[in-house]
């Protein structure tokens, strides 16, 4: 046996997690601990109902409604609840605002905390060791990898989600969007702009949802 095969024998989870998960689910269903239809409903919720389009609507409204923006910055949980969003992993929300002189970036160095009700489940890069390790020590380098080079005079604020507060960035409204409807504005707002790894561009097609 090669050392690689030997390592496989002793790892906590065998290399085929699909089989392990299937076996675990069958056991837990048979024991009466889990309703498989509840699993279907949870998966459907996060695949189809909750995602970054929610957050984009919050951002667009804040751009159009100065009073809502104020409520959003002072009590984000309540303001976001006005739009019908909240719940798991969004029980305690904080919105931080970008400007010409301040750029915010959100990370969770200890695990992968992320504001589910407004952004959905996090992408792989947000959960990666590469992002979690470097966002706090080299945020400018991280942003350059995302194609965003910020001038030195812009202050970068990194928010490490070490507690149950969940952070969302309110990006700057792009120039040349004055006449646009709230709905059209929401279509410009990308997930990455609400994490802080991108800016919102006028007329840009929505990025990866």
């Amino acid at each position, binding site marked *: 046996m090669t050392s690689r095969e030997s390592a496989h024998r002793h790892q906590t989870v065998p290399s085929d997690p699909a089989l392990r998960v299937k076996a675990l689910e069958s056991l837990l269903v048979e024991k009466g601990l889990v309703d498989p239809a509840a699993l*279907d409903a949870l*998966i459907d919720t996060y695949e189809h109902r909750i995602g970054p389009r929610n957050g984009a609507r919050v951002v667009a409204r804040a751009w159009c409604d100065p009073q809502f923006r104020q409520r959003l910055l002072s009590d984000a949980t309540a303001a976001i609840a006005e739009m019908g969003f909240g719940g798991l992993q969004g029980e305690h929300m904080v919105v931080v605002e970008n400007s010409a002189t301040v750029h915010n970036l959100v990370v969770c*160095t200890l695990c992968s905390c992320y504001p589910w009700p407004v952004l959905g489940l996090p992408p792989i890069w947000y959960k990666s060791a590469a992002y*979690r390790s470097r966002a706090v020590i080299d945020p400018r380098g991280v942003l350059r*990898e995302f194609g965003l080079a910020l001038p030195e005079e812009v202050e970068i604020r990194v928010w490490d989600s070490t507690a*149950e507060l969940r952070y969302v960035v309110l990006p700057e409204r792009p120039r040349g969007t004055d006449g646009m409807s709230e709905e059209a504005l929401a279509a410009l707002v990308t997930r990455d702009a609400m994490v802080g790894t991108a800016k919102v561009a006028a007329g840009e097609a929505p990025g*990866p949802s």
Partner: protein
Amino acid sequence: MNGVHDLGGMHGMGPIEIERSEPVFHERWEGRIFALNRAVGAWARWNLDASRHSRELIPPAEYLRMSYYERFLAGLIELIVQHGLASRAEIESGLPAPGSLKPVPALMANGVATFVAAGAPASRDLPVRPRFRAGERVRARNIHPATHTRLPRYARGRIGAIERDHGVFVFPDTNAHLRGEKAQHVYSVCFAARELWGSRAPEKDRVYVDLWDDHLEPA
């Protein structure tokens, strides 16, 4: 614990791989284990902090090799066994032990929407006094518990300022071990990048870390 999960400030983890048009789940089993964690968690035998700690206990080399959802699987198996919902023998054989069946699952399909919308707030409406005020200078304590903590290594011993008092929350460092909620104030603490990383860090940059009263001392 000074585990490999405490990644802030480490080097050598490679480039950030950005996938365009990424699906929510890449494979079916990822969705199933994500949902299983929630559905089994609904039995309330443990809490979110204990669940995080179960993944921190994965040996470092394994932790870095595994994907996010592989860690969910490994952590959930440990919690299920530790808290007696199923034995290791049952998990290995796939066969329920006689007499171990529950009449009704804790989370049924018709309860999912409410379960998701209600969430599980970690704040507590208790008259606990804050030890610090906004603007006050504080030092993150230089502690190295071998147990769960949400005070990351890179902030320990460093001086910052209280940016905002978020109110009273459960304290994960005890709650993860089911040793009480020990509710106390949580603050966003603002650290200058230079305080954390030295004089070569950009002068204006800041890192905000959410910390509890027990993590902080006056500076």
